[in-house]
Structures are given as C-alpha cells and as structure tokens.
C-alpha cells in the first residue's frame, strides 16, 4: 500500500466515534494544560496516562498525542493575554503577542496564531505521511549495533543541546540511564538495585518520576515565588484584516519548515523552533526595528513553528522509535504501557494503530482550530481562576496519577522524592530533559549494547565495523566533544555553564 491509501485506512480508524471523542478530549485537555501555568506538557501527558489504562491502545495514543500538540495552542493564550507563557515554546510570543493585546488586538493575535498552528501541524503531519514508509524500511535493516549507534546519536544530540552546560546535561543523561537499571535485568531477568522491595522489581515507574520532576518541582518553584494573581488583557474581535492575513503567509511557510525540520532533531525543543522562527521573521522583515511592538509576523511565525515542531517531533518516534523530547518520551512510555513498541515494527504489526494515530493528527489539529477560535472565551474564563486554587487541584491530580500506576502510595513517595531533588537540581541549572529520555530509552540501549557484545563475543570493534554505525558514533563523538573544545577556546568556565 502507498502512503495515500495507508492514510485513508488511518482515517477510517481515527474517524470512529470513540476515537473522535478521545482526540477531542486530548485536544481540550492539552489546551487547558497549555493555558494553566505550573503544569507543562510532560507532566500533563504523564497525568493522563493512568486514565488510559482501561482504554484501547489506539484511542489512548490518539488522546495523548492530541494533548501534546494541544498544549502548543494553549500556551499562546496566556502569552498574549497575560504576558506569561503557558509553556516554554510560547515564551517568544509574549513579545509581539502581548504588545498586540495592549493595542486592543488580542483577538487578532490569537486567531492568527491558531491558524498558523493549524497550518504548521498539518504540514508536519504530511511530512510524517511521506517519510513514514522510506524511514521505516531503512530502520528495519538495523541490527542491535545500528540500534545502539542510533540511540547514542539521539541521546548525544539531546545532551549536547540541552541546557547551558554539557557536563550537567551528560550527568543528567547518565543518571537517567542509572535509574533505568533499577528492576529486572532486561537480558537475564536478574534483579538489580531493588533493595528487596517488590515495588522496584518492575523498575522505578517513569510516571511518578515525570510528575515529580516536571509537576511537583514546578509547583515548588511557584510556591517559592508566592501564589500571586495575574493581570489579564482584554479580548477583542477575532477577525484579522486582509493585510494581517497577507502578512501571515510568509511566516506560516517559514515557520512550518523550521518547526518540522527542528522536530526531527532530538534535543531541539519547541522553544528553539519558535525562537529561530522569530529570528527568521525579523531577518525577513523590512521593518525589523518594529518587532516587539506588536508585529503580526512575530506571533504567527513562532506559533506555526512550535506546533510544526510538536507534530514533527513525532516523526522520529513513529519511524525510528526514538523520542526527541521529554513529552515525546512520555508518549513512548504510554505506547509501551499498552504493549506497543513505537518504531518500524509498529507499521508492520499494527498498521491500523500507526496510521490511525497519524490520521488523528489532522483531525486533532482541526479540532484545536475550532477550540481556539470560536471557543476562545472558555479558555479566557479559565485563566481567571486564581492560581491559589489551581495549584492544589494540580497536586491532587498528581497524587491520583502516581497512585494509579500500581495502586500504591509508594509511587507517590517516588514523586515527592524526585520533585524535591529536581527542584534543587533546577536551581543549579541541571537540565531535566536528558534524564527523562535516558530513563525511557535505558533498557533498550542496554539490550542493544549487550546483544551487540554477545554477537562479537565481547569485542567493542563491532561498533565501528559497519560503515553506518561507525559514522553514527563519529557524529555522536563530535556532538559531545565539540562543546568542550569551544569551552577551552573561550578559556573560561562557570558553574552555570555560561561558557560551555
């Protein structure tokens, strides 16, 4: 079957009433998470996973992926109306989005951002449809050696690009791998680091860890700043002028390309995509000095890019089984909890699920366009809920989410421990994204490493024997070593890693 007929088969799955409802729920909850300060997409997706335990895998994944790209839409609303980004990728939108709101053009900013996000999401989904078959065919040729090399490159990119200091990013990456060692050894089934606790036999649950490091740590940071109230800008007409629409065409095209392209690279966050798009728009503009004063291009470009990035980031997950961001890693975890392994085999063994979920991206983005244009008033009302009330509700959901993993309060304890540790590590500028990625990929990485060494009877030369793995390891080495040389050349060093 070609890509088009596969997509049509996917639509027949995604358009089933139950899946439509779940796509809608995911989109709505995603927008809500984007709107709410103090809870990001990773914690949001982790919160929702326990609720999907009793669902069909297709519906569960449709809901979680819709939640992921839905957060990108929601984050814009707070950026424009409050000058506070609901999530990191929308931070740059504050500059021109809030300036437009102050000029009484909040509605125009939000509607153009929603249209741009829709176009960006659609473009990235089309790229996934086109790339899926060739990429999966290539991935099917991979043995354990190539898999290990590919995982190493993915993780190196993540660590090389995360945070300000490569040492701290590496430390978090290795810590994630060490945490993934807890539980039964994936090759021989021998218990490791379980301290004779039955709860640890299956490893440390990634849901409580993610809730701790992204959810609880965020609430603790907000508690440090106090639970103050925020000033909401007034809404205006949603209809853009002809000139606004004309000004948006270029930013939408550029944002789609930048976002999708960066989505393919592990470690490139949605924030990087929106920031790069903002710079591109400024460079392309005849009046760059007006950026920051309410330019339409400064809103549409970054918003298109961050949503294209969210959908584009799912391309490596679906085709190669490699998550490129913490939230995508959580989605990968959800796949595994439902007994599915994302990657090339998913297209072979469960084409209905793979193509059903891909088709749902189109539907989900369309739903988000509706949710964010005519129904914008609902989100504005939600923004009026005081944070003093919201933080307790968010905490309650985290407790339920952690407890539901194994019906055990032990998981809540894990969430608390990781929340406290992460709060302090974040104060020391440790990036948390590498930890989450390696935590999820750890067992797979260990399995491919050990299988490779079993094939070679212990010789590490196997990793440079095939040209593909040799090239991949060379790339990984360059990514990890380059920042060290850069730092040496600058001749200075700091705890915050400003020079690294």
């Amino acid at each position, binding site marked *: 079957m070609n890509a088009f007929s596969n997509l049509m088969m996917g639509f027949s799955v995604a358009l089933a009433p139950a899946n439509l409802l779940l796509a809608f729920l995911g989109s709505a909850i995603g927008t809500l998470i984007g709107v709410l300060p103090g809870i990001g997409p990773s914690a949001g997706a982790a919160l929702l996973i326990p609720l999907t335990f009793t669902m069909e895998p297709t519906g569960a994944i449709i809901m979680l992926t819709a939640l992921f790209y839905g957060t990108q839409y929601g984050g814009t609303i707070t950026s424009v109306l409050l000058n506070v980004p609901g999530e990191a990728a929308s931070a740059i939108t504050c500059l021109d989005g809030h300036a437009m709101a102050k000029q009484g053009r909040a509605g125009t900013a939000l509607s153009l951002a929603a249209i741009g996000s829709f176009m960006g999401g659609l473009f990235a989904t089309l790229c996934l449809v086109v790339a899926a078959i060739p990429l999966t065919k290539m991935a099917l040729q991979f043995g354990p050696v190539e898999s290990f090399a590919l995982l190493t490159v993915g993780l190196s990119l993540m660590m090389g690009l995360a945070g300000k200091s490569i040492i701290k990013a590496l430390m978090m990456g290795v810590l994630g*791998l060490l945490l993934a060692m807890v539980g039964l050894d994936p090759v*021989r089934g021998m218990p490791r680091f379980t301290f004779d606790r039955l709860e640890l036999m299956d490893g440390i649950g990634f849901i409580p860890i993610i809730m701790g490091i992204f959810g609880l740590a965020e609430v603790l940071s907000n508690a440090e700043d*106090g639970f103050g109230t925020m000033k909401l800008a007034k809404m205006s007409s949603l209809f853009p002028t002809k000139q606004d629409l004309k000004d948006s065409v270029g930013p939408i095209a550029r944002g789609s390309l930048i976002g999708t392209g960066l989505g393919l690279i592990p470690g490139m966050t949605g924030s990087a995509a929106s920031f790069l798009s903002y710079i591109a728009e400024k460079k392309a503009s005849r009046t760059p000095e007006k950026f920051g004063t309410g330019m339409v291009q400064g809103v549409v470009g970054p918003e298109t890019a961050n949503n294209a990035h969210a959908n584009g980031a799912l391309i490596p997950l679906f085709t190669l089984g490699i998550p490129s961001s913490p939230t995508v890693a959580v989605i990968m975890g959800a796949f595994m909890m439902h007994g599915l392994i994302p990657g090339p085999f998913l297209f072979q063994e469960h084409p209905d699920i793979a193509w059903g979920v891909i088709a749902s991206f189109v539907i989900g983005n369309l739903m988000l366009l509706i949710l964010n244009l005519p129904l914008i008033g609902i989100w504005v009302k939600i923004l009026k809920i005081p944070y*003093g009330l919201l*933080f*307790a*509700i968010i905490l309650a959901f*985290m407790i339920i989410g952690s*407890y539901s993993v194994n019906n055990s309060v032990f998981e809540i304890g894990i969430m608390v421990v990781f929340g406290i540790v992460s709060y302090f590590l974040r104060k020391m500028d440790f990036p948390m994204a590498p930890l989450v990625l390696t935590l999820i990929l750890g067992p797979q990485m260990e399995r491919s490493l050990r299988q490779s060494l079993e094939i070679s009877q212990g010789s590490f030369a196997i990793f440079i024997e095939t040209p593909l793995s040799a090239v991949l390891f060379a790339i990984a080495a360059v990514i990890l070593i380059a920042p060290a040389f850069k730092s040496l050349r600058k001749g200075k060093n700091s705890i915050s890693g400003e020079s690294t």
Partner: protein
Amino acid sequence: MNKNVHLGTAIGFFLFAAVIMVQSLELQFYTNLGPGPGFFPFILSSIFAVLSLVWFMQSMRDTSSETKRRFLPDRAALLRIGVVIVAVSCAALVMDLIGYQLAMFIFLFVLIKFLGKQKYLVTTIVSLAGSVGIFHLFGKVLSLLLPTSTLPFLAVLGL
C-alpha cells in the same frame, strides 16, 4: 554560599556513583554468553563518577556571579515549599488508612485555605469536588479504584 552547595552536590553525586559501582561489582560483570547484569551499571556509574569530579573541578575554579547568588529562598518561601511537601507526604501516608476521600478533602482544604488564601465557601466546594467527586468519577467512568479506609467506622460511611 552557592559555590559550597555545588561542591557539596558534586561530592554527593560522586559518593552515589561509588556506591553503585560497588553494588554493580556484586552482580555478574561478565558471563560465558557476554556482558552480565553488572556490566552496564558499572560502566555508567564510572562515567557518572568522572563527570561528578569534572563538575567539582569546574565549581572550584568558578568565579562567576552565580557563586554569590543565594541558593535557598527566604523563610516565608521555604515555609510555603515545606507546607506543600509535608501536605503531599501526609496525604500519601494516611491515604490507605483513612481512604482517598477524607485524605484528599483535608489535603485540598488545608492547601487552598492556608496557602491559596481562598474563601471558606470556595475552599469547601473545591475540596469536596476534588475528593468525593473525583472518587466517584474515576471509579464509575474510568474504572480506576481509589483507596477506601481500612478503619471500620470510616469504611461503613463509604469513605
């Protein structure tokens, strides 16, 4: 002050790596078939130990303004953080004993009223919705069973 925290954390990380290294050696490092269960953790903990040392050295040489920044927040902020941590921990500890509904009602009421500083009516309504409401919603709609009390007099009340 900040510098000492960084140095202390680096030492802590190094000790953590050392413990894992020792424990990894107690597992099988290599078998007839290839690497054993202790192989990967040993390599990882060795790398972690080296990285901790590098970070320690970097922190020692650091003279940036970061080192002078206060690490811990002021007393009021610390109190707010402490209340959140204690509240979540207590809710977890008593949940199996007094059941989800009562534990979560108290948890939400305390946080919303005393940290969130909301009115009594709002606090009570949200606390009831988040405890009794969620318990029934999750149980009936999502088939997710939340704990009920193990104390007979509370269990009789359906809590």
